[in-house]
């Protein structure tokens, strides 16, 4: 039997109880070091979404940005690049609905998404955007890749580019418009980060599929996107402060670290290998694509972790009340 010096034993969930009894070293001016909570239990629920959703953020973002890239390439007369980008756009956009459906609790009820149009719901708006993307990408890609159905293909390409752009960024609204602190408090940075990430992956994918001589705009887009993604993410982490701690811990932390490394490294490699090695370019592009994927995963996992921490929810609210 133990000596019982500490036998009172607190329950398993100690987080966020009162300040008393917590390590004595620091002295703080604020009355509480950490906000109180109910047995350390979360206030808000963590997302019930599974792997399909971050993957969808990636496919939708890549697909949407690729459609815009393809359209721009068409306009710029870079047919080779346009073809590659239409392929990526088609792949990305057509992979998205199955992912969404698969994540639903009742997949058969997917079409209920079309039951109403809710301007207040980013997911409703997004569903219509995705529907529009789906409707546009088929003729757009058919025309862009196979050169057929031009009559509807041409306007469809314009439409596809137009709806592709919001597809790449609305997902940031989707998560920011929630009660998950690490998401909602990053409302300004997330769309830019997602846009950058989408640009990076779209550019990188097109780079891989396009002969180097035609791939320069894609390369530039990939590198530029990577820089914006990294910068936006960095700003987000800094501005979140304590709230952003999930990006430094656990699964989210590992993904964030990987995302940063892969994105910065991939951009550097892609930039360096412009005129030298095709292999290097492919490797750099692959790193960027992986980095983009990791970034989505980091954001997603950070949301799970943030929702699970009551102080993340209560802290800013208490502070806000204190200010008022």
């Amino acid at each position: 039997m133990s000596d019982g010096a500490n036998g009172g034993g607190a329950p398993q969930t100690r987080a966020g109880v009162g300040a008393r009894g917590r390590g004595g070293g620091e002295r703080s001016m604020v009355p509480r070091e950490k906000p109180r909570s109910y047995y350390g239990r979360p206030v808000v629920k963590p997302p019930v979404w599974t792997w399909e959703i971050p993957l969808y953020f990636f496919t939708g973002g890549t697909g949407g940005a690729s459609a815009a890239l393809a359209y721009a390439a068409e306009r710029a007369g870079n047919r080779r690049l346009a073809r590659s980008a239409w392929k990526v756009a088609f792949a990305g956009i057509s992979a998205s609905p199955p992912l969404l459906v698969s994540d639903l609790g009742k997949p058969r009820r997917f079409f209920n998404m079309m039951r109403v149009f809710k301007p207040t719901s980013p997911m409703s708006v997004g569903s219509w955007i995705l529907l529009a993307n789906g409707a546009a990408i088929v003729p757009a890609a058919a025309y862009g890749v196979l050169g057929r159905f031009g009559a509807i293909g041409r306007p469809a390409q314009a439409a596809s580019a137009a709806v592709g752009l919001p597809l790449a960024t609305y997902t940031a609204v989707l998560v920011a418009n929630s009660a998950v602190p690490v998401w909602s408090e990053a409302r300004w940075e997330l769309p830019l980060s997602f846009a950058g990430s989408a640009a990076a992956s779209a550019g990188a994918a097109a780079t891989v599929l396009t002969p180097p001589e035609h791939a320069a705009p894609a390369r530039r887009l990939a590198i530029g996107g990577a820089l914006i993604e990294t910068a936006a993410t960095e700003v987000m982490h800094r501005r979140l402060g304590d709230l952003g701690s999930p990006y430094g811990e656990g699964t989210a932390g590992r993904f964030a670290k990987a995302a940063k490394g892969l994105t910065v490294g991939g951009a550097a490699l892609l930039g360096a290998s412009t005129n030298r090695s095709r292999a290097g370019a492919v490797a750099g592009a692959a790193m960027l694509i992986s980095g983009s994927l990791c970034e989505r995963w980091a954001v997603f996992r950070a949301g799970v972790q943030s929702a699970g921490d009551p102080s993340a929810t209560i802290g800013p609210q208490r502070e806000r009340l204190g200010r008022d």
Partner: protein
Amino acid sequence: MAECHPVGFQWVMEAKERGAKVIHVDPRFTRTSAMADLHVPLRAGSDIAFLGGIVNYILEHGREFREYVAAYTNAGAVIDERFADTEDLDGLFSGWDPERGSYDLASWQYEGMTPFSAAGRRDGAQLGESAERGQLEGGDPPHFDATLEHPRCVFQLLRKHYRRYTPEMVERICGVPAATLIEVAETLCESSGRERTGAFVYSVGWTQHTVGVQYIRTAAIIQLLLGNIGRPGGGIMALRGHASIQGSTDIPTLFDLLPGYLPMPRADAHQSHSDYVADNSAATGFWGNMEAYYVSLIKAWFGEHAGPDDDWCFDYLPKLTGNHSTYPTVLGMREGKVKGMFCLGENPAVGSANSRLHRLAMAELDWLVVRDFQEIESAAFWHDSPEIENGELRTEDIATEVFLMPAAAHTEKDGSFTNTQRLLQWHHKAVEPEDDRRSELWFMYHLGLRIREKLRGSRKRRDRPIRHLTWDYETDGPHDEPRAEAVLAEINGARADGAPLSSYTELEADGSTACGCWIYCGCRAEGRNQAARRRPGSEQSWVAPEWGWAWPANRRLLYNLASADPDGRPWSERKRYVWWDAEREGWTGEDEPDFVAGREPGYEPPEGAKAEDALRGDEPFIMQADGRAWLFAPAGLTDGPLPTHYEPHESPFTNPLYAQQANPARELYDAPDNDYNPTAGEPGSDAFPYVMTTYRLTEHHTAGAMSRTLGHLAELQPEMFCEVSPQLAAERGLEHGGWATIVSSRTAIEARVMVTDRIKPLRVDGRVAHQVGLPYHWGSRGISTGDAANDLFSLALDPNVHIQEVKAASCDILAGRRPRGPELQRFVARHRERGRETGR
């Protein structure tokens, strides 16, 4: 009350909202404490000292309601000069016979009254007398000092008896600070008198002790001194724990009673009808009509066969020779004397003290019939029990035949429940029971029919009662269910011509009336089921007399004449309830007056008056032979006329008041598997240094058959746990959320640990007293499972009512889970031995 009777507690909340003070006295801080103005934690098993301290406070400060006490209690009665108090005899009253282990009650009598002949009452003393019968030679006390100054009058004896129950002594015994005791006492006094009343509410926390009856008696003394009996907002409320536990006491499935609190006949005293009637009726008060009640019962049971020629079938009734209550019965089972047993909606393998012993005893039965909703522990003992698990019992060695029969639910049968306020409420059948599910009414009736059929041709004398039994109830429905209303009609009673009776005052001793339970007479007055009355509460007075039916005579408040002064005027307008209306020459008020109808307050009984006619017009306690409430009980109790603090049978503390440690008259059993913990002062008591107590939780129901089996309740309290203070946890290394093993001399059980500030260590007799709280709902079956707390307790019983002491005993608690298999009993034995070797 909030914990175990939440819906009843709404009225406490309402009273609190109107300014009532709520004081909760309990070892643990419960949901009731959370709502109370004051929570007083005390050491389990010390309540008489606590209440005695209040009695002393009232008397020392002259806070009694003098007029009430003088007029309505026996405070002025002068007691026999041979009476000696526990203060004189160091913890014993006069009359103690150490040989027989019981009291001779002769010296406790009112002076000038012939005490009962002791001859042939050996078993009687052992059995206890029913205080309701008010056994006195008759009439008012011969010597009565209305000034309450006579040194041997009850009032002065009371003062002397409780003089040492000072706040300081209370603190020493109970661990309640003296100031708190004074606060409680003062609050009670302030809340009593003409303008105000205070109420006591208790449950089995008071009854399950070796001095349980005396706990209630102490509260009764307080309430009488403060004038809180028979008045609105006063009283002592027993909050009972089962839908019809009151009904099963009124119409008793209890060994020592016949319906309506008539005693079962005893072999030592009752060999004939006249013996029985003479011994059990009182000359004065309503027990003076006892023969009418009894004869009417016999007529209800044996009909035309019962008459004066056959001594009213007196030989048909089996006779008692001692205590045949459930615990001696279990020992009889263990010894093979009991062949068969019925468990009818009860789960002794979890709910009875030393439930382990009960399971071991069941394995010795030839046959067992269990009727319940689920396969409860009492039905499963032969294949799923701690004894099977640890190898003490092996399924293949158990010869017991077990019949497990599905019971019908309350929605599947008509019938009446009697609630805790003596209110009969009818529940109607909603649906037919499916498959083999049947009511107990069906089961008993059809079992009876079969047995009668099999014995139809018998010429044996012993079979006559069964052949002559009235047993022909109308049946209906697909299962030939006997009509519950037909049974209720028999309980209510009828004249020979079949006309239903309306009141127990109509009962006759000549056989012209039949009545299955005299106190229920009137529940079908005018042939209408009064228990089924459902006039909405919102459409009638606050007393709601037209909802259900309360025994006796639909009186909602007993002895309610005490709500008026001796002249029949309300003590105060604010507290008026029943009063004498001089113009109409009758009693009137909110309730049915609990008195002889139309008898004026100034009535003086004529010479030679009998029964209720012998009571004066200002004597409200009509069941007592002297019409007075008894502060001092000259008869009716086996362990003393006044409540005295004794330690529980197993206690880590010695009795600071007397050399006599525990109730001398308590019932103990020297039987295998019923070893007792050494109590304080005995060698080895150090092995059991803590107090343990059992209780219920809101989320579960008694032994769990009706709650642990239901997901919606099981999830709310999913596991057995124990509650300990942080200090005890520190002392024993117990981890919150971890496991603890609780040990007594009987066995050891395990429980999850709840370390909580709701259990406080107390300072008792110069030491820290730790208490271990144990909810007793769990067993091995159902959705929510755990060890049974009752396994830890012994058979140590109150001598008056034979109820076991499970609210206070000693134990030890250790960190970690209990041993499994055969190691368990070795572990317990080692623990016992260790105490003996190293302890005091």
